[in-house]
């Protein structure tokens, strides 16, 4: 057995050798190409053992949250078509996200274990309780919508009570919705995955903007133009926040921002930016055209899904390459800024 080539063993393949910390090139603030050492190029942190169902869960959670907010607003301002799309959209999205979560866990009974404890240090536990708080109200409002679509003779008795509860349940659902959209950013950021953790300041804004864009997009898709005004405003505002926050995030997250531009994640992110921008422009231009509004709505939803996929994939890629773990930490140590408790 021939001993392996030492140079290759100690340096990560594909990383050009340049002195650590040597100058910053170009007009963009980019981290220099890093020379670093690793153990045969193997990862240091482990990538989350999650599949795409978690990215889908992030997307459907966002659509559900935004939709229940739009539905409550539409209910209060007498826009029945928008209310219907919002409530049904929230119900379907919640069901899909629960499906994705249970699929990831493997079996439904495992979800029950999540309700054993309430732990503030675990964003997943916090998220479970946020969903447990929001879900029943959103579902009750959606049920009221379904009952309202039934023949009048079925709307008596217990089902009739639902009709009365629809509005208050919808309002509570809307007030508990924003944490549903925001907590998923903390869920990703509270990991050792370099691209997720380093984005913790902006990721909630990216995700909430993306949720608003997607749910507004759904509103545009399903509502006639005379009632779609708020969905349009919500979608365009969300898209603007998402694009701005995403740009800012890339500038602040250091070397792991690279992973948002490379490989699969890069393709998702480029598609996300194109679809979100096109959707926002189309939504603004399509005030009087149902067809253009629908196309824009679909583009905004697709853009939001691409954002989730892109951020998800970037995190996995950043965990698999030891460069994104070692280089920022090594630079910190070399600068003498090792993280230490300041008593």
């Amino acid at each position, binding site marked *: 057995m021939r001993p392996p080539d030492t140079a290759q063993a*100690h340096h990560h393949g594909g990383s050009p050798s340049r002195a650590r910390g040597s100058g910053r090139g170009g007009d963009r603030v980019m981290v220099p190409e890093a020379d670093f050492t*690793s153990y045969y190029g193997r990862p*240091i942190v482990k990538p989350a053992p999650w599949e795409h169902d978690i990215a889908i869960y992030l997307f459907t959670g966002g659509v559900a949250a935004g939709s229940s907010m739009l539905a409550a607003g539409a209910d209060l301002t007498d826009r029945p078509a928008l209310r219907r799309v919002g409530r049904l959209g929230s119900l379907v999205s919640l069901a899909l996200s629960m499906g994705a979560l249970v699929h990831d866990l493997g079996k439904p009974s495992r979800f029950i274990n999540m309700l054993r404890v309430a*732990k503030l*240090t675990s964003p997943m536990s916090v998220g479970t309780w946020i969903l447990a708080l929001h879900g029943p109200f959103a579902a009750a409002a959606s049920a009221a919508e379904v009952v309202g679509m039934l023949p009048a003779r079925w709307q008596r008795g217990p089902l009739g009570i639902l009709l009365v509860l629809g509005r208050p349940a919808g309002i509570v659902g809307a007030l508990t919705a924003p944490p549903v959209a925001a907590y998923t*950013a903390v869920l990703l950021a509270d990991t050792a995955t370099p691209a997720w953790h380093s984005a913790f300041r902006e990721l909630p804004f990216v995700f909430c903007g993306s949720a608003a864009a997607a749910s507004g997009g759904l509103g545009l898709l399903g509502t006639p133009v005379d009632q779609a*005004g708020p969905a349009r405003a919500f979608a365009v505002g969300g898209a603007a926040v998402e694009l701005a926050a995403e740009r800012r995030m890339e500038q602040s997250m250091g070397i792991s921002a690279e992973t948002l531009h490379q490989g699969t994640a890069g393709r998702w992110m480029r598609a996300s930016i194109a679809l979100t921008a096109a959707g926002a422009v189309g939504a603004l231009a399509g005030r009087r055209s149902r067809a253009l509004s629908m196309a824009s709505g679909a583009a905004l939803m697709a853009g939001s899904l691409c954002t989730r996929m892109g951020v998800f994939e970037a995190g996995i890629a950043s965990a698999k390459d030891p460069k994104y773990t070692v280089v920022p*930490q090594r630079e910190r140590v070399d600068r003498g800024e090792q993280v230490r*408790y300041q008593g």
Partner: protein
Amino acid sequence: MIGRNSLFGPLDPAPDAGYVDAPARKGFFTDTSVCIGCKACEVACKEWNDVPENAFAMLGTSYDNSHSLNANQWRHVAFIEKQAPTPAPTPEPVSLGMPSVGAQPSDVADEEKPDFQWLMSSDVCKHCTHAACLDVCPTGSLFRSEFGTVVVQDDICNGCGYCVAACPYGVIDRRRGPEGDPKVGIAQKCTLCYDRLSDGQKPACAQACPTESILYGDVDELRQRADERVALLHERGIMDARLYGNDPDDGVGGTGAMFLLLDEPEVYGLPPDPVVTTKDLPAMFNRAGMAATAMLAGAALSFLRRR
């Protein structure tokens, strides 16, 4: 109990977790300068804890084919070929007036000898003072033992995998195989032989280590021994010797498993400056709260304009 140092900073983990009259914190001191890479620790760990065989594959990079710490590998011996800056001088043999044993002194000139040396190091779960895996577990499956260690209860774990992504050392993992193993899909890692500790015994790896590279004991005492050992090596001119994980003011509040290394941590596959991710949790929740409030305000604003 929530204290000032609950998320970050030095503390004694077992009393912090609510144990009254907890025994002294237990841990490992792995002195890699005396590790011979025999892998007895890996085998003893598998035998005692009934950890099934890993997916063994000839990796072709070194003699290390057990790959990494994972759900089926709670101790992992790293084999590193290190470029030696100068060949180590061969000490002059001392005649004891006894019949000679072993190889004759080599007549190969020092500069013709291979210019590399082996570094070997047995890696294990660090049992952090601030354990990210424990902090993020949504089911309470991971818990802090009375010995200050971190243990998984695999009948409660729901396999969400959050601890896997949270560990800054890449230790804990969800078990993938072998087929039919009841713990497939469940997070697994070193328990510091919780069952043996409860019975007043050493962990299996420390028991099996033939060179005392793996020392087990009270963390305070091990830290002292580690300091003495590194001072001794420095005295002998081995200036590369350094301690890892022994500092209670570091990013994870110090670890229960500390190491004496002969090179930078990343050479061994260890992060140079690991930080518990929950250190930033208050800031994360603050930012999420801001974003959520902005979203609600945005939704309200969307409805302001009359049709």
